[in-house]
């Protein structure tokens, strides 16, 4: 399969990239791993005149940790995230999301920023990032803005990203003690899979045996964008974790989901799976929280 013709650019600095994007305007697309963009271009779904490759920008390729938390460069590779002991230890749900993404060959190309910015409803990075309360930094020529990741998505393939803007960084606060999170990607195959449904849950406890002080649940592939299951979260907060509580939360999550019938599965089955996955991720999150 052939790519449509375009002009290629590879800026070495973020400021340079922003200037270039501003100059090239609407016809330019930033290129990260290429596992979404190049596929869509080969299928003739998009035909940018310019492609701006972000991989030579050193500033956006690394993981940083400070007293408050973590900063992940948007060009961080999915395989590196999956293989990072630090992420596995501190942000296990993100680690789970990265480890299950596509295949080893996809993970070696794909980046966290690309997975977010392509805004596929079934993408694996957004649900865990949403439950960790991640914010993302968007850079434009001369300025930048920070927004909560869940506000970023506006529709399938659509985001708040403006023409000329580049997603540069993902910021995650260090999760508090007695908190835990988990992510499950659900599909027919165990590799090379796009989620039929995915779910991430985060809970924070007052004490190892105490009540839930904070809960976040995010669902993938059951709406035009990754969704927060807010009524399910409401069920949890202030309560002591129990099987029946998680069951009720899982039921509530079903009402938060907005799945459609498509050729990959029916809305009804997806709703059933929202319930199962919500409960299973909550159980896993609890185990981590009370550990």
């Amino acid at each position, binding site marked *: 399969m052939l790519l449509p013709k375009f002009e290629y650019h590879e800026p070495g600095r973020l400021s340079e990239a922003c200037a270039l994007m501003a100059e090239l305007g609407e016809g330019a697309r930033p290129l990260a791993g290429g596992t979404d963009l*190049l*596929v869509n271009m080969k299928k003739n779904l998009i035909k940018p005149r310019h492609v701006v*490759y972000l*991989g030579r920008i050193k500033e956006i390729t690394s993981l940083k940790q400070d007293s408050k938390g973590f900063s992940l460069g948007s060009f961080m590779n999915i395989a590196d995230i999956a293989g990072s002991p630090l992420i596995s230890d501190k942000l296990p749900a993100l680690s789970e999301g990265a480890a299950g993404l596509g*295949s080893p060959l996809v993970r*070696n190309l794909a980046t966290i920023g690309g997975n977010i910015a392509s805004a596929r409803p079934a993408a694996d990075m957004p649900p865990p990032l949403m439950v960790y309360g991640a914010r993302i930094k968007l850079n434009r020529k001369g300025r930048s803005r920070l927004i909560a990741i869940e506000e970023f998505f506006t529709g399938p393939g659509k985001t708040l990203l403006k023409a000329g803007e580049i997603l540069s960084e993902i910021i995650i606060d260090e999760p508090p003690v007695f908190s835990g999170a988990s992510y499950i990607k659900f599909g027919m195959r165990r*590799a*090379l899979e796009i989620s039929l449904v995915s779910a991430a849950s985060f809970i924070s406890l007052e004490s190892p045996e105490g009540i839930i002080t904070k809960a976040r649940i995010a669902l993938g592939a059951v709406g035009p964008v990754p969704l927060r299951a807010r009524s399910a979260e409401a069920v949890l907060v202030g309560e002591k974790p129990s099987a029946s509580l998680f069951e009720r939360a899982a039921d509530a999550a079903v009402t938060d989901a907005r799945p459609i019938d498509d050729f990959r599965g029916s809305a009804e089955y997806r709703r059933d799976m929202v319930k199962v996955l919500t409960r299973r991720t909550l159980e896993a999150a609890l185990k981590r929280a009370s550990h």
Partner: protein
Amino acid sequence: MQKICFQLNGEKAEAEIEDYLTLLEVLRDRFSILSVKEGCGIGECGACTVLLNERPVYACLTLAVKADGCDVKTTEYLSKDGTLHPLQEAFVKSGAVQCGYCTPGMLMSAYALLQEEKTPTEEMIREGISGNLCRCTGYIQIMEAVKDASQI
């Protein structure tokens, strides 16, 4: 047009290429590296797997310009001196090769795995080649071959 300069199977390689060409096209059309096969063109089958800076990737989803300054290895590298690499040998002996179309890509994924992990578990082998589809073997003899090669 872009000028790229990279290491190809241990040797210096240079080419003037159009911006929109993939590494798959450039390796096949400019360098006659025909072990890199196109099975799907959109990063779902692994027949075009090459090592880019020692990591296995889909050449069909890698712009050739990205290879500039990088190290690229293909199946040809494994038996560069004429003799089969132990991994290739194991593929031949275990019956891991049938139609052969997935074989070069499969070898590169397996080779990368063994570079990183000398004695992988069965689970690691399965996982390591899970981005490479095969329609003939059911993967069983391929996994045996990788295991055999790891014990040499």
